[in-house]
């Protein structure tokens, strides 16, 4: 199986896995804020330390935790070069036509690349340790206040969670169909683009049919179980945050505030 860039969930029983997804989402936002506002070597050191602790406690293998960011190196290189060449024309170390390499530009390049890589590692740590459905539930619970301005957050949450719920099911089905077609002689590798596109028809048609069949069955099953739209549902009280969740929130909050303090 090919390694997906990011977004894979690796089940586990570490303390990071056990944290409430709502707490983890807020922690993610706090840490992202910390990364964006970091400006000094000490600031980055602090964030690196926090990330190392998270990865260690979550028992994530390094190639899974850092791999996705590492594989983005062509993209990161382009960001670095663009920043180095175009950031500013004052004090150039080297100039030619419209290109000016300056110390400030190089610094800016390093700064931006580091930020992007750190953001990828941190958000990857969230998706590696949190089941997709947990993340949606957490999102649904965090967008609740939007109901005050008339957004049907329950429906939105239901749609998102049903969609996410069926990603693995459809992937599994797609996998099965792909295997069945390979077993009867399908070839999915072709040089010519039109051939390549055509060779995927035996996959795409059955997968679409399967998706519609699933949707029909699910709609019937939901109706049979008495679903009448999210508005009239009795709310399920989510489990309250526990001590480790608050501890994680406190740590992330402190890191963010320290960043701001370090800036001054």
């Amino acid at each position, binding site marked *: 199986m090919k390694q997906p860039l990011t977004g894979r969930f*690796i*089940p*586990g*029983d570490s303390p990071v896995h056990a944290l409430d997804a709502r707490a983890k989402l807020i922690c993610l936002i706090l840490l992202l804020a910390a990364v964006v506002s970091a400006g000094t070597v000490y600031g980055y050191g602090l964030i690196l330390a926090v990330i190392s602790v998270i990865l260690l406690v979550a*028992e994530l*293998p390094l190639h*899974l935790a850092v791999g996705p960011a590492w594989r983005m190196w062509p993209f990161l290189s382009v960001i670095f070069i663009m920043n180095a060449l175009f950031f500013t024309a004052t004090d150039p170390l080297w100039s030619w036509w419209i290109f000016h390499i300056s110390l400030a530009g190089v610094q800016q390049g390093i700064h931006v690349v580091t930020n992007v890589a750190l953001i990828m590692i941190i958000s990857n740590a969230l998706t590696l340790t949190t089941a997709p459905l947990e993340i949606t539930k957490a999102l649904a619970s965090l967008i609740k206040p939007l109901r005050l301005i008339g957004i049907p957050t329950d429906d939105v949450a239901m749609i998102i969670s049903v969609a996410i719920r069926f990603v693995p099911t459809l992937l599994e*089905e797609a996998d*099965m*169909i792909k*295997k*069945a*077609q*390979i*077993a*009867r*002689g*399908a*070839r999915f590798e072709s040089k010519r683009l039109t051939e390549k596109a055509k060779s995927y*028809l*035996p996959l*795409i*048609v*059955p997968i679409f*049919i*399967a998706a519609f069949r699933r949707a029909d069955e699910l709609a019937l099953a939901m109706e049979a179980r008495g679903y009448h739209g999210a508005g009239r549902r009795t709310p399920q009280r989510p489990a309250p945050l526990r001590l480790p969740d608050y501890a994680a929130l406190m740590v992330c909050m402190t890191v963010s505030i320290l960043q701001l303090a370090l800036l001054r």
Partner: protein
Amino acid sequence: MPIEVENLSYTYMPESTQSVAALQGINLRIADGEFVGIMGRTGSGKSTLIQLLAGLLTPTRGRVLLDGRDIAAKDYDRSILRRTVGIVFQYPEYQLFETTVAKDVAFGLKHSGLNHVEVTSRVRKALEIMGFDYDKIHNQSPLALSGGEKRRVAIAGVLAVQPKILIFDEPVAGLDPQGRYSFMQLTARLHQGGTTIIMVSHNTDVLSEYTERLVVLEHGQIALEGLTKDVFMQLPTHDHLPVAMSTAQEIAYMLAARGMNLPQGIITYDDLLFALKAKLGGGEEAP
């Protein structure tokens, strides 16, 4: 082409702390023309095993040998495997996609190098084996057929390649008794024609009546293996196995419990009928 399995293991999600060892150290040899049944509860590794046999998964450890050659080897020509081993998954009807039945059945022959006339004759033959009138059905859309017809068209698509080894995953699940019977008659005919059949099923009656050899999987290992009759005979002494006796066998046990002494080894309905005839002295016209 015998198919052999050497010390075969397969693990799902090997990187995770919750990795699942689906198969552990399986050794198995299936000779040409055998009819082998695979039993075991859900999650015992049956589906993983047949996908490994068909080369659709790569073993974590161990090897699958087709005609003595490792099918996972880098220099192995996979097209030999595809021509030799056909697999019919649990809901084969979901793999239909073409605009006409004939095109869908011919799909597997696309890269076979056969000319148009040969392809058409193979498609016709496969559809006729599955009980269709080629002239009536070949131009219809496979997606507009009934559920049972779709399944037969999909199986025809596998038969058209004329594989020497045919693997079925739960082929009779969801079929009515008539459909089950005609499907098993068809399988028996293919077997008589020299095709090796490997069939995964929960249906002990079907397995007891048709297979020659049985493999019982439990927790990814072979718990019991041998001639069908021997395996069923051993079942009562293996209470921990989640595999039921065949219906005929169960009837014989119930009769024995009520004091009717029948000979040992009643597995199929024919065995039961024969034993009852001998016991009750009924003539040729006994039921």
